[in-house]
């Protein structure tokens, strides 16, 4: 499973950091950081929430 960010879209709302804190973090400058590009399978439900509720539709999961 791979996490893909459309950087044209991300506005730094940080909703994903609430849904999947293992995978996403907002750095000191307000910019999104992806902590794991290929997260383990057990994080899938959390990632699906992050994808569904990202306000700008910037997150995709492949595989």
């Amino acid at each position, binding site marked *: 499973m791979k996490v893909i960010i459309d950087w044209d879209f991300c506005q730094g709302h*940080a909703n994903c950091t609430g849904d999947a804190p293992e995978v996403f973090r907002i750095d000191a400058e307000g910019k999104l950081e992806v902590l794991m590009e290929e997260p383990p399978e057990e994080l899938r439900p959390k990632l699906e929430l992050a994808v569904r509720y990202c306000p*700008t539709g910037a997150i995709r999961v492949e595989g």
Partner: protein
Amino acid sequence: MQVQVSQPSPDRAPYAPPARTPSHRLPPAVSGAVPIVGHAVEFIRDCLGLLWRAYQEQGEVAKLRVFNKDIVLMTGPRAAEAMFRAQDEVLSPNEAYKMMVPVFGKDVVYDAAPERMGEQLGMLRPALQDKRMRTYGEIVADETRRMVQGWGERGEFDLVQFCAQLTNFTSTRCLIGREFREQMSGEFAQVYYDLERGITPAGYIHPHIPLPSTIRRDRARVRLVQMIGSIVDQRRKSGAEGEDFLQTLMDAAYNDGSKLSDHEITGMLLAAMFAGHHTSSVTVAWTLLELLQAPDYLDRLLAQLAEVYKPGDDVTFQSLRQITLTENAVKEALRLRPPLYILLRAALQDFEYGGFFFEKGTWLATSPWVSHRLPGEFREPLRYDPDRFAAGREEDKKQFAFISFGAGRHKCMGNAFATLQVKTILAILLRGFRFELLHDPVIAESGLVMGPRKPFRVRYQRLRPNGAF
């Protein structure tokens, strides 16, 4: 704080404007343009009708003329993607939304350079981020209950007016703060109303046309700076600090260390209010109107609400995610009745798309209203059918097809807030009351927002006493 909104990614190559070649086509013109004014009369009187006719006549790319301005309507996901992915220095929202400058103020948001605008929007962001977002459900629920606590067993009300008042309270309290909400006098409502009425499609042509509405708008802006300025003064003098958005703006600084002036603070508060108030208000009204005409779906939705909420339960961030049928009902209202029916960009450089050549100076437009009515993108597009977003169909999955909030780096920042707010209001109202339409809705394009025409009478019957919903 670094803001990504309007900054190109580091590896992006500088824009190379296309050279015009003989194989390029120019956007085809829509019929009915008259000398000098072009389509201006139709644009102001019946914008939705004109946009739909433009698409029917010319398809994906269709050129309108409003006075001396060419506006090319781009329809469908591919054309919308080309528009939304372009950089600000190529297709500029700022240039196209100059009409908002008399309201937000000089050097604020659309009148600021893209980087400055990015910094200003970045100051709004903390109010819309995850942590604060998780607290808004309760606040919106509280305001909704306050609105209906005086209602009797049965009665009638004007839905349009009701939604406008309620969202005025919720958006001021969530975005600006409790203190401001409690101080919201009748005067504020009037001043805000005058500002809102001062924005009309005529503003696309020139924001300062001396109409009675624009004169009232400019007077209202001056008064509002005084009103907000006096709250700022009081706080500065008393040393009291609020934990609200106003405080965030009072404390905020640009990257160069300079602070915001009262003029800028007022402008930013207005930007947040304008983006979130009328649009959310009509979405509540449309969703309820559509649901009342889809009784089978409404029954299922009510059953889900009853499952998730026991009498007296409060709405929470988590429970709001469980009421998926309400969520899809809101989304479908946004599809069929997008509050903003036209989104604009101004080409600051030559641009090409699909073999068409757009000369610098042209405006590009996309209409959620038209794009959401394409049968190729949405099954039976004219039907209110919230199940189209449910698992298995997911007609919103295709990127750039559903564009009620726009898309790309300028996609509405308040989109998650708006959805949360409308869901909360509906969850409270529908648990407390049964509603009945008294007539059919008529569309009113008031200013830039499309809503049901006022007054819209609705009958209510109380299902539960106060405190039990």
